[in-house]
């Protein structure tokens, strides 16, 4: 049942991407991007990754759609026709895609309990968590406690992204004397 659902959602995502490729109206592209994010979020729910789904729905479909609409307000809403046919770039991305497909052949199967990633530290987290941290949600325990350094790094990355945007977009108000 889950596989049919996920397959259907993935097919809808392909249709959405095709629509994004075909249309030249950027407003439609932004809206289709939001739809794509919601489909991704639904796939995440079907895969029982509700945390990721929440983030995807709020960031991908919510905030970033609004940001793109804000950017669209500053420029023309029609995509310009390309000056030339980008065959070289197309060949490169096709090659990379094929290489990635080839790479997935070597990966362990989906839901395989014998996969290396489930054999390394995951059993220890699951077995010792009750005595060491004792929170019912293992994801929170791993995220905030066992991998506390990683999460500190991630928070710093988010902060750096914000600081970068501030550095790029901030303008001094040109009222009164202009020293620069």
């Amino acid at each position, binding site marked *: 049942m889950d596989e049919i659902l996920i397959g259907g959602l993935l097919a809808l995502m392909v249709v959405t991407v095709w629509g994004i490729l075909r249309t030249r109206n950027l407003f439609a592209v932004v809206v289709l991007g939001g739809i794509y994010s919601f489909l991704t979020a639904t796939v995440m729910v079907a895969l029982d990754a509700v945390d990721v789904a929440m983030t995807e729905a709020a960031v991908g479909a919510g905030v970033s759609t609004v940001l793109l609409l804000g950017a669209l307000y500053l420029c023309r809403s029609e995509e310009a026709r390309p000056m030339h046919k980008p065959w070289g770039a197309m060949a490169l991305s096709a090659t990379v895609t094929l290489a990635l497909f080839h790479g997935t052949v070597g990966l362990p199967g989906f839901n395989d309990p014998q996969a290396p990633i489930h054999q390394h530290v995951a059993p220890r987290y699951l077995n010792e968590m009750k005595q060491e*941290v004792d929170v019912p949600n293992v994801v929170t325990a791993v995220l905030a406690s066992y991998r*506390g350094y990683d999460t500190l790094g991630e928070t710093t990355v988010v902060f750096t992204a*914000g600081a970068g945007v501030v550095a790029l977009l*901030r303008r001094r108000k040109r009222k009164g004397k202009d020293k620069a």
Partner: protein
Amino acid sequence: MKHDLILRVIAKILIPFLLLFAVYVQFHGDFGPGGGFQAGVIIAAAVVFYALIFGLKAAHRMLPESWVESMMALGVILYAGVGVAGIVLGGNYLDYFVLDAHSTVHGQHRGIFWVEVGVATTVSGVMLKIFYMFADRGHLDRQDPAASQESAEL
């Protein structure tokens, strides 16, 4: 969208529940799905929603840009401060076991709680700051009152 009565009424009803949901996701993250990042994003989305319906100026009045900027840094400082607290109390950096004198498990709970608060603060601050900067740009680009009115509504 300033004169759209239905949107304004719906927004007024929805936004308190959005914020309540964010708080639930934040503090219930130990038991169910969620945590600091999700809560921060939902808070930001609620404020963005408010700005979309009631205008950027109203959002600035509710949550001034200086606050948002401080939130960006305060979250990281809070997170790093939990690590320093671990050192001060005799453990390693980001060692939660020493945060409670009586029980290591309570120390873990305390550490996770404050770390998640830090994450939520930074994430919502950054999201809102980026939104404010983008939305403000159109406002400053076009100085004529009609266009700035329009961008304030955007």
